[in-house]
């Protein structure tokens, strides 16, 4: 079959970038990786990309197809080619691009290593030198996290990391959960402490892009939620994010509905709330800040309070409470749009971030001052 592609060619060394179109003949069962091989062999040998296993296990071939990170060896080209669509292939996001589709993975590995990603045994090592005796059920707590092949697809799409490049990110945190949940690891509390600080668990924006993009079903967002649950169970809840989460619990078991007005001071503290007075007043004007009194109490609040007490009694807290309901690789096929509903095809015609530009954006006081100075000039 005839396959057409557009590839973002780029050289970090020279800064040259160009969107090139290629059209080649490929077998029907060809994957995106196979097509890239044909382009490299027969059209342009200078095309650079990583590959190895071609069976979705080594994690080398992460790249973006129409702005969404995929494993090139996992994408079958048949449907795309037949639909006449010409996809745009570009390097993964949130990582500096070296050449064409090859990114510099150093920042990725650096964050990975920052998690201390190796077992730190506790005091309960087996005395007979044989294996730790652990039930499969207990090991299943980290089943999904242990599937990670370090491909970078989740990191590529992380919305939080795009705005804050220092965010540890879904891959590193999922690896962290792999250890926190491993019964043989004796350093869970230290880990949770480390991961709960700045740029850690509470920086996750819950966009679920990582879950969506992960080719192995690791569900990094769920791993981050498990870390949050475990951290709070250990009483490591000083972070504003944890306070924010706790307020929802408190609301549910006291009034049933979220006590919105008190959310800001309860999360950020009184002092910070006072600083936000001007902003808050703007909200009050439009009725966005419901008065805390009388409290908006749900009719059935007695039940939600009673349930809370029951839950506490039964003590299923922490990560064990997050049941692995869906198997790692299950899928739901999306509903076909009705005739003619293409929905935003145009927006996917080019990569979200043009290679060569700084891969993240951040708004800080310095940048604000810069922006204001520029405007003044």
């Amino acid at each position, binding site marked *: 079959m005839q396959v057409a592609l557009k590839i973002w060619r780029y050289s970090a060394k020279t800064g040259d970038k160009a969107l090139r179109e290629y059209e080649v003949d490929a077998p029907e069962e060809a994957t995106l990786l196979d097509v890239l091989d044909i382009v490299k062999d027969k059209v342009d040998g200078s095309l650079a990309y990583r590959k190895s296993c071609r069976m979705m296990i080594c994690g080398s071939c992460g790249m973006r197809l129409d702005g969404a990170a995929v494993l090139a060896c996992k994408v079958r080209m048949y449907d795309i080619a037949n639909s006449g669509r010409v996809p745009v292939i570009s390097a993964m996001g949130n990582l500096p691009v070296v050449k064409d589709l090859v990114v510099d993975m150093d920042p990725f590995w650096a964050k990975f290593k920052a998690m201390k990603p190796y077992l730190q045994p506790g005091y309960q090592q087996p005395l007979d030198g044989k294996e730790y005796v652990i039930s499969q059920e207990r090991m299943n707590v980290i089943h999904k996290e242990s599937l990670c092949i370090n491909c970078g697809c989740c990191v590529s799409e992380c*919305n939080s990391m795009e705005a804050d490049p220092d965010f540890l990110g879904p891959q590193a945190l999922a690896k962290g959960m792999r250890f926190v949940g491993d019964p043989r690891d004796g350093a869970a509390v230290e880990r949770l402490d480390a991961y709960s600080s700045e740029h850690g668990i509470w920086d996750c924006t819950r966009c679920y892009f990582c879950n969506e993009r992960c080719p192995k079903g690791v569900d990094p967002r769920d791993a981050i939620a498990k870390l949050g649950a475990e951290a709070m169970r250990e009483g490591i809840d000083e972070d504003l994010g944890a306070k924010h989460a706790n307020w*929802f619990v408190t609301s549910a078991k006291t009034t049933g509905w979220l006590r919105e007005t008190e959310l800001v001071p309860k999360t950020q503290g009184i002092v910070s709330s006072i600083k936000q007075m001007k902003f808050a007043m703007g909200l009050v004007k439009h009725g966005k800040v419901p008065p805390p009194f009388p409290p908006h109490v749900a009719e059935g609040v*007695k039940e939600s309070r009673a349930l809370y007490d029951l839950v506490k009694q*039964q003590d299923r807290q922490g990560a064990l409470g997050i049941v692995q*309901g869906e198997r790692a690789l299950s899928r739901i096929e999306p509903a076909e749009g009705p005739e003619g509903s293409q929905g935003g095809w145009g*927006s996917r015609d080019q990569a979200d971030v043009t290679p060569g530009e700084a891969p993240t954006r951040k*708004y800080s006081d310095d940048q604000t001052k810069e922006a204001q100075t520029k405007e003044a000039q």
Partner: protein
Amino acid sequence: MRRVAYYKGCLASLSAKELDISTQALSPKVGLELHEIETVTCCGAGDIHEAEPDYYLHLNARILAYAEATGSDTLMTVCNVCTLNLRQANHTLQGDEALRERINANLRSVGVPDYNGTVDVRHFLWLVAEGEGYELLKAAAHKGLKGLKVAPFYGCQILRPSKLLGFEDPDRPWSLERIIEACGGEAVDYPAKIKCCGFPIIQAREETALGELIQPIEQAKEAGADAIVTPCPLCHLSLDAWQSKLKAATGKDFQMPILHLSQLIGVAAGFEEAELRFKRHVVSVQPVVEKLSV
């Protein structure tokens, strides 16, 4: 008329009351008979899922159980986050018999009816984007949007994770565009329409959240949109109430009006302020109103 149980969630009850008001006014026109579940509480918003996961399951099982008790097979939500939380709980409970038994035992002991897994959770958006709801919407939107340029903002949790939501392709959604077109508007396209507004961390990590928030607003503005429409009141809160913070941080004053989905359709259906409550928005919707009344 299609009978559905209606769960409005926390924001629609309080700070985003305009969402509830416009939804209730619009529903009969698109063939939906709403039965509001009275006794329910917060779905947990993803926070309780993290802080007290077992409690989260119980709270949502309770909501679903009461929805079942209305006799309907559909529970309608008007918030992305509620939709994901309820669907996730539903899916988890449907797949695990032992878990279901334990939770039902607890529900029974506090006087809540059993959870049987017979209700499907669907966002209002899904009910009017196709089928009977869509046909009635087309008919109802008689006043039309007169070519108003509207940028759809889906946000995150109505699209992802698609294995729990699955209504439309998470990378190529079409429902909002279809509705905008049906209402006589022009759908504006831009890459950030499926990205995150930053709401979940807007208090704990304001800087990061603003770095996310600016993207849809700036891109929609650059693409020439007159307004943004969103199906989630949490996204709405970020996009609308926090827009002023963007001005403080970047010096850019976008003045981009943000509409709830039900308001957008309501405008096209000829609703007045009493049913739209635009005055409750922080960023003025006046420019849109003026454009449409000319």
